[in-house]
């Protein structure tokens, strides 16, 4: 860590360094300048839980409602209960008992939607955030009294203050005493300081550890493609390609049973199905050439067998290189490919 003290210490150990260091430090101190009072007041807008930084002003629930419907309701809903764009700000789940105790009981209920007013313990937070960051697309455009009125409206929606309430810097502290979850926060944990004590530490066991390896959760098949085709989200060469999770594009296969079309090479089908990555027409690449396959099964009624081989893969018929099963291919596509392969003369 750099520190002035350490720099002095280092310098003092060298003869003649004293003057150099003095020079150095004073030159360094020429960088940056004193902030003016107006500059500080323009930027120092934060409001602390003890209301340090809160500007004086006031606003009523009624004024807040007008502003809310005009500038806020689009995202948050008329009553702050929408979850279309953001999490709800107020949506019930706060009782009179909560306001008395300062602990929102519904926070222990996993089925209860958690809203801003259920969680936030400090009224300053609401005021500060609206003032610095709202509205969403025009932050810092609200006047001080407008911020008061919007906070008043929200307090009213949360049944903390009455309809005719006027919020001001004079009574913020009184309202703070009514915040439903004002006693709901704890700092009793080990995550504030690097020297904090962890609440859960793992086991050091390395051999025959007693663990339950029952699988309790995994993604069902229908969810595997919810993030898009995973095959397209991995490096597509190398040892670990992505799993095909999207359905294979449906190809229109025109009546392949007709003998004319069977002699035509289904080049598109071979390309789209990915066959040509390993198979060429006339010579062996990774797997045997198509001509060789067609020659081998010429005259035999092998289409069912070949369809099965395409779908399931195999090893040993044409060499030791295994062919992986093309399970991602649609059955119609597989059938068309198998028919063509089996139609050699």
């Amino acid at each position, binding site marked *: 860590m750099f520190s002035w003290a350490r720099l002095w210490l280092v310098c003092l150990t060298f003869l003649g360094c004293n003057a150099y260091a003095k020079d150095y430090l004073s030159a360094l101190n020429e960088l940056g300048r004193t902030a003016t009072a107006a500059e500080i007041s323009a930027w120092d807008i934060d409001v602390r839980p003890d209301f340090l930084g809160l500007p004086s002003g006031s606003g009523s629930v009624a004024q807040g409602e007008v502003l809310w419907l005009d500038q806020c309701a689009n995202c948050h809903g008329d009553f702050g209960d929408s979850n279309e764009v953001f999490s709800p700000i107020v949506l019930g789940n706060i009782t009179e008992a909560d306001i008395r105790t300062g602990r929102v009981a519904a926070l222990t209920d996993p089925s209860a939607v958690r809203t801003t007013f259920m969680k936030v313990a400090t009224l300053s*937070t609401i005021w500060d955030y609206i003032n610095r960051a709202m509205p969403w697309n025009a932050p*810092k455009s609200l006047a001080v009294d407008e911020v008061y009125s919007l906070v008043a409206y929200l307090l009213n929606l949360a049944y903390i203050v009455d309809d005719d309430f006027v919020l001001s810097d004079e009574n913020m502290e009184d309202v703070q005493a009514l915040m439903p979850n004002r006693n709901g926060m704890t700092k009793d944990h080990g995550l504030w*300081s*690097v020297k904090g004590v962890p609440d859960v530490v793992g086991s050091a066991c390395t051999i*025959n550890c007693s663990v*339950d390896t029952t699988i309790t959760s995994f993604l069902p098949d229908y969810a*595997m493609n919810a993030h898009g085709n995973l095959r397209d989200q991995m490096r597509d060469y190398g040892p670990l390609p992505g799993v095909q999770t999207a359905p294979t594009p449906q190809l229109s296969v025109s009546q392949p049973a007709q003998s004319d079309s069977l002699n035509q090479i289904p080049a598109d089908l071979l390309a789209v199905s990915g066959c040509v990555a390993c198979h060429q027409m006339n010579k062996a690449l990774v797997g045997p050439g198509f001509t060789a396959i067609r020659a081998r099964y*010429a005259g035999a009624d092998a289409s069912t067998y070949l369809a099965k081989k395409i779908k399931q893969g195999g090893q040993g018929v044409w060499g030791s*290189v295994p062919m992986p099963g093309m399970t991602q291919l649609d059955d119609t596509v597989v059938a068309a490919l198998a028919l063509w392969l089996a139609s050699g003369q």
Partner: protein
Amino acid sequence: MPVGASEQEGQLRPAPESFLSEKLISEISHSGVDNGRRDLLRGAFAAALAGASGLTFADDPNIVEVPEWSRSLGKSVATNPYGQPSPFEANIIRRQSPGLTQTDQASVAFTPLQNLFGCITPSGLHFERHHQGWVDIDPRRHRLMINGLVKEPLVFTVADLLRMPSVSRMYFLECGANTALEWGNSAVPTVQYTHGMLSGSEWTGVPLSLLLERAGYDRNASYLLAEGADGSGMTRTINLAGALEDAIVAYGQNGEMLRPEQGYPLRLVVPGVQGVSWVKWLRRLEVGNKAYATKDEASHYVDLMPSGQLRQYTAIQEAKSVITAPSAGQKLLNQGYYCITGLAWSGRGSVRKVEVSVDGGRNWQEARLEGQGSSKMLTRFNFDWVWRGEAALLQSRVHDDTGYIQPQRAALVAERGTRSIYHNNAIQTWRVSPSGEVDNVQLG
């Protein structure tokens, strides 16, 4: 290309037909395989597999035929004045998790950990987490103010800061909500989405301590408020004692100026602490004697406990590790050797040891660590594994230099429940199926 095609590329294999005689091929073609011919085939395969001499091989056309890039004039220098990755790497990009957020400005784009190497995250792949969109700031018009409990409130220009003594240090950056989706159940399909709010970078800037000493900060103060210049005016309460140790007012990332998505031209670097405290587009630091309870430490970034209490000011990212490859959504196609690789880190210090289990945590073996494991930085680990087609449950577990050991998910959930959103540092399990497919699972 079909799944499964790639692993044989460049491998020299006996040409399938070449180890069968013309006569045998012709006989099989006409009359099928009877017992006699089957024996002949078996013999031929055995000879081929044993590598018998005298075989011909299917030559690799990529060697025997001159590829186009070897017989053409290449592109000019500075064709891309700012270099770009190969077009063949187009899959490796930041991605959003559909449905995670309702707006694209207060959202996340995850880092593709599954395909990255080493410990440095390319700046263009560094995850994004913004609270009200990202902005392009003109550095000439940007200022840093230091006020609050200081003898002299100060204003610095970016030019001032660029002129001051600087440090460059490597630190990991992890969002407090990384792995948040996995508290209740397996919810997302790849490591990009489970752990991709994680990065490692070299950060360059002015030590915070130097600036605060210059301002004459109050030695009795214990908090620092950091504030951003973006629309959200992001504010976070920082532990002043911790920040004086190693925090940096950074302008550089991996040798260049910060990317706009990472706070250009200034961001606070708070090593070991969750990403939200690394305030981007940093415009102000206020020294104080009380915590600030800002929106993102009063409504969000509070950890809900089963008691209904919310843990507030949870900052430190405890030790955590994850196998990045093989990982969920990938497929092992060949049996044989694999290098299980991943990342480990600790917000309290350095990584001392990483262990890997392939049987769901019953037995553990030590992995090799790359490098010496610098404090509060990612450490890459590697583990040799031979896969013979068996089902496997892959896990990694980190020990840090405080003696802390990464917990199993069940132990973490027993204490914190499943609704705390933040600070999920549980051991991750990847299931390998006999088909070679890997997926994201949780154990009992």
